Structure formats: structure tokens, C-alpha cells
């Protein structure tokens, strides 16, 4: 099972990103472990400068702005995103 973290201090875009990933995973019937990281020092430890950031299995795949539907689909389905 994939572990997906959304990094963000609680702005509207971060919440939307979390919801989009949740919906996409449900629609595709893929089980994921979804986490929201709001702790600043922890966010910074990923080297992300613009939030929301997305981390899939420990790897930063996105930073800044709401990700596109295509990108989310790739993260969920690609074995090595």
C-alpha cells in the first residue's frame, strides 16, 4: 500500500489537495495510507518551499499549487512515481 503525505500548514489549497487525492483513490478503488503533515519543521525537512507539497512513499513528487488530476492518477497507479 502506498503512503501519501500532503504537506501544508492548513491553507485552502492544502485541504483541496488532500480531498482530491482521497476522491481519486476511492474512484479507482486503490487503498492508500493518506497523511496530512501540518508541523512546520517536519514540512521543511522535505525541502519543500511552496505548499501544498505531496510526498509518495517518502519521495517529494509535487510542490506548490493544487496538483492536476492526471498527476494524482499517476501517483496512485505508477509503481515507481
Amino acid at each position: 500500500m502506498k503512503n501519501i503525505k500532503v504537506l501544508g500548514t492548513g491553507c485552502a489549497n492544502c485541504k483541496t489537495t488532500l480531498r482530491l487525492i482521497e476522491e481519486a483513490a476511492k474512484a479507482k478503488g486503490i487503498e492508500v495510507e493518506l497523511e496530512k503533515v501540518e508541523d512546520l519543521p517536519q514540512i521543511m525537512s522535505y525541502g519543500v518551499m511552496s505548499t501544498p507539497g505531496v510526498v509518495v512513499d517518502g519521495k517529494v513528487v509535487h510542490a506548490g499549487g493544487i496538483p492536476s488530476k492526471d498527476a494524482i492518477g499517476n501517483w496512485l497507479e505508477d509503481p515507481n512515481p
Partner: protein
Amino acid sequence: MNTSTETLKTNPSCLMVWLIGLPLAAGLWFLAYWHLGDFADWTISVLGLTRDTHLGEAVHFFAYDTPKVFLLLIGVVYLIGVIQTFFSPERTRALLAGKRLGIGNTLAALLGIVTPFCSCSAVPLFIGFLSAGVPLGVTFSFLISAPMVNEIALALLLGLFGWKIAALYLVTGLAVAIVAGLVIGRLGMERHLQDWVREIHAGNAAPTTGDQLSWEDRLRGGLHHVKEIVGKVWPYIIVGIGVGAAIHGYVPQDFMASIMGKDAWWSVPGAVILGIPMYTNAAGIIPIVEALIGKGAALGTTLAFMMSVIALSLPEMLILRKVLKLPLIATFVGVVGTGILLVGFLFNAVL
């Protein structure tokens, strides 16, 4: 991989659509812009009003300014949106890392205009810059300029005040950001960062996008930016112009001259202090400010008020509190506030 080959194949035809569509849209834009006055005249005549009445004057103001501001907003935000696809925060950081005070501050203030920036990312950005070796003063120049000199403020000033005032705002806003950053840098306040911030050395850079984008991506990026920005600020603009229209139609001439006029020396500091707890974006405040100027408020005072509302706000300070200790926050407010004061006094004296 699948998706990227697909976009490569469809690229030429899509780019054609953009190459035809953009000039067409620009043509329509100019056509609409030249007929703003006709539209406003038509609106009040349809409503059976004349400009001699208070209501007629207010409605005319609203019907003229609303489409004008939105046209300019869409145009300016689109342009900046396309330019922003060339700059990511990561690239800006790389450009600024290790730059000395002075040249670094100027560069930082300029990059603040074109780097995509959302106020909710201010703190991660701040730490990201510092940890990559961007000096504290240079980082502050960026952080002051990015929200203050933004495309929304410039578009609204252009629409409501004309290009001269927009240019003045641009130049003085940059000057405040550069000088405030220089002063903070000179004071050597690194020890007033919160402890956990100083311990972070983010060596691993986050992924950079922006290098491999095609022109089609960039043109579409501009459209995306328009949707995002205009979608967010349109209610503020409508309410702002509505209040402005009411002031325009109903408040007596020269009413503001006594409180916000040139002769009241205390009006500039008053405007700056009043602006701090107010947290609205440029979109809501500028139409109101324009109406106030029409009623005798001095330009320097109103510019100072605008800058204070946008650049110094309580919620932002609460966020910064997580990374800065109190002395540094106080310095930040003091230095930026002084800069804005000087801008206000300068314009009241010159114009």
C-alpha cells in the same frame, strides 16, 4: 510516459489554437476597453437615470469601473501568469543564494513580482531561502515585495488611477522592500530567528518544474493563473467598487480633505497604523481608496494606507511568529512602517 508522448503529438495543433485564439481575445479585449464609457452611459439610460442625480452618478461609476477593472485585471494577471511559468521559488532561491546585500536585495525585490507566491507558503519559503544560504536581509526584501507589489494591486491601480500612479506604486513599493531588507540585513538579526529554524539545513532541493514546459504549457499557465486569481478576488472587487460608487455619489465634495488631506500631518502615520489590523487584499481596498481621493484625500496618505494594509497585517505577523522571535518581528514592522511613512510624506510633499 504515456501522457508525455501524447502531449508531444498533439502539441502543434494545440499551439495553433493558442496562436489564433490569443490575438482574437486581445482584439475583443481592446474593443471592449474602448467602449467602456458607452456601456456606462447605456446602462444609466436603460435604468432611466441621469448623471445629475446622486443615484445616477453612483450607478454610472459602478457600470464604468467594474468592467474596466476586470478587463485590466484579466489582461495583467494573464501576462504575469505566463511570466511566472519561467520562475519557480526554487529557481529564485538559486538565483539569490549567496548574493551580497545591496545587489541581492534589489534582485530579490524584483523577483518578488514574478515568482509565484501564495501567502500561505510564506513561512516554508522563508526557511527554504535561509537554509539555502540566502542572507536574511535579502530574504526579507523578497518577502516584503512579493505580497505588496503584486499583479492585482498593479492592475487595479492602472484601471482606477492611471499608469503614472501604478508606476509610482511599483517603484516606491520596490524601494521600501529593498531598503527595509538592507536595514534588517545590516542589523544582523540572525540570532532572533526561532531556534528550530536555525537548525534546519535543507540540502535536498524540492523538484523543479518550469524548465521543460512548452510554450503551450506557459500560455495555458497564464489562463490558469487568471482563473485562480480572478476567481478568488472578484467578490472583493465588486464590493469595493460598490462602496466606492456610494462614496462617489453621496459623500460631499472635499469631505475627506479635512481628515486625509495634505494639511493634516498626522494623517500619514494615522493611515499606516489604521492599516495594520486591516487584512484585506488589494482588490477590496483600492476602489474605495480611489473614491476617497476624489473627495479630497491626499495621494501620499492613501498610498501609505494601501501599502500598510497589504504589507503589514496582523494575521501575517502571527504566522511569522512561528519562525521569528519578537525583536525581529518588531524590527520588521518598524522598518517597513517607517519606509511606508516616508513614501506617504514624500508624495504629499511632491504632488
